[in-house]
């Protein structure tokens, strides 16, 4: 019986073993298997097998519609590096990341700092910023298509009301990405806001009192108390936003369909169109793996940089 064996501390066993001696009989491992089985089966079918198959597919030129294709080695990856479409899509994605991450994190931080103060109706204000975060992107894009309408759109009405010129927004290649970033700010700002607000509330009040007694100005309090206090969380928020922004798809696809003239077509849209419209399955799988690889590299670089800045 396992009861017996668990009561005998093993020679050289850790301190834990001594504690176990007082514990009641422990369950057997087949029970763990039973409880893990439903999740395990689904995990195999929906994650483990597809990850491996996806990698294999990325080494083939399979076309599901025609039922053709065979092993081609790393040819898809080599093709991707020379593929102008892919390079353009990657460029648009990187542009979105570079615009979106700072805007979103900065706005989230400013809102969190304001909402962290002693305001009346704070919960209501917070709800206004968090609400959009929970909405389906398809509905958000639909609403924003009308908000951004050059003729009847409400955003241009607002601009004109305050004396600014109306904009073309979605039909102007130079502005379409800006419009996407604006929508994303409205839709997603609740996320950095909530995490940073929680981090701000975790900073002990005594630190601010001590800083004030030492005669620190508001800026100095922010620089030497607030910022170090939220630094780890801020780093995490930046990383999560980076990862999420590389996977941008639905708001762009639904707002601009990648246009005007392809100026907002992102990597995931290319993956979708390659794999599920043109049915170039192998090539699409390679795009998916390359995107994952890029995200992995970004994650590692982020970790290295943030670890180094902690040291210094």
């Amino acid at each position, binding site marked *: 019986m396992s009861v017996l064996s668990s009561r005998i501390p093993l020679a050289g066993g850790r301190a834990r073993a001594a504690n176990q001696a007082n514990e009641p009989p422990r*369950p057997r*491992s087949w*029970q*763990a*298997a*039973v*409880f*893990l089985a*439903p*999740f395990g089966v*689904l995990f195999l079918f*929906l*994650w*483990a*097998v*597809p*990850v491996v*198959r996806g990698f294999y*597919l990325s080494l083939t030129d399979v076309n599901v519609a025609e039922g053709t294709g065979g092993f081609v080695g790393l040819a898809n990856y080599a093709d991707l590096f020379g593929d102008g479409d892919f390079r353009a899509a990657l460029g648009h994605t990187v542009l979105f990341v570079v615009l979106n991450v700072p805007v979103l994190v900065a706005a989230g931080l400013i*809102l969190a700092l304001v*909402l962290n*103060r002693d*305001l*009346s109706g704070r919960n209501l*204000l917070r*709800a206004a*910023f*968090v609400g*959009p*975060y*929970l*909405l*389906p*992107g*398809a*509905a958000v894009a*639909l*609403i*924003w298509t*009308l*908000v951004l309408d050059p003729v*009847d759109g*409400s955003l241009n009405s*607002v601009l004109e009301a305050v004396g600014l010129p109306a904009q073309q927004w979605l039909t102007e290649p130079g502005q379409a990405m800006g419009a996407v970033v604006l929508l994303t700010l*409205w839709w*997603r700002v609740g996320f950095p806001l*909530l*995490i940073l*607000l929680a981090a701000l509330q975790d900073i002990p009040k005594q630190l601010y009192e001590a800083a004030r007694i030492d005669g620190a100005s508001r800026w100095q309090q922010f620089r030497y108390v607030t910022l170090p206090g939220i630094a780890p969380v801020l780093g995490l928020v930046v990383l*999560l936003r980076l*990862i999420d922004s590389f996977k941008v798809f*639905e708001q762009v696809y*639904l707002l601009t369909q990648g246009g005007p003239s392809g100026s907002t077509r992102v990597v*995931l849209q290319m*993956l979708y169109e390659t*794999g*599920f419209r043109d049915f170039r*399955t192998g090539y699409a799988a390679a795009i*998916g793996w390359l995107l*994952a690889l890029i995200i992995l590299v970004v994650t590692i670089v982020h970790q290295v940089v943030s670890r180094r800045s902690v040291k210094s």
Partner: protein
Amino acid sequence: MTALAHRRRARRLATAAALVFAILWGLPLLWTLSSSFEGSTTPGSRLLPSDPTLANWEMLVDPGGRAVNIFIAFFNSTVVAVVSTVLALLVCSMAGYALAKLPFRGNAAVLGLLLATMLIPGEVVLVPLFQQFRELGLLNTYGALALPHIVSLLGVVLVRQFIVNLPPDLIDAARSDGANAWQIYRYVVVPLIRPALTTLGILVFLGSWNDFLWPLISTSSPSMQTLPLALVTFRSAYGDVDYGVVMASAALAITPPLLVFLFAQRFIIAGISNTGLKG
């Protein structure tokens, strides 16, 4: 006194500034709601409908043989979201319980595998997942739409962590009383981890309700469309003609998430703040 008055004024100013932004943030949603009751067909940005009518909503309820029936999509989305949520709660809490409380060889390896898999973006498996569902003839089924939402890696980790942090006395007491693993799970653990399950349930429900890319890939038949897909079809069918109806469809799609938010705000805020979940 003057310092106090000064502080009060600063507070009022900050409140006013925050309020202005909060109203700005709410405007698109107010416009959506107001336009869904708009009788005039010219789009515009009015806070109140110029010609209030229920016709737009009536058109959604009674499609009268039009190509797109939003209510079928609403029904599909509801079925998929509810089924995903219930099954995810069951499957993830069972696995989380096993990882937290049932010792077995390879426990650490399983946990490590889950955490490593969380680093892989789901987009990597889109293509092979489509292949697998296709081979099994499961495309265009509720199963295809719901299954990927059931396996929440984060859900298992979340539940496991919550159970690990529970005081061990209750579970030990139940075990001494002769309760078996299932009874402990069902009558001791599940009631204790309700907060974690609520958070997970909301996340899975919203994730499923809001999902766009996977339904787009895994369904082709109009009768299996979920609401986000139907919105797109609907817009291309009526967008230029009848903008009030389109806004009514958008209002319909955002209502359930907003209701969830209204009734479970505490859990949502806690869920996002504490776990940094799901972006």
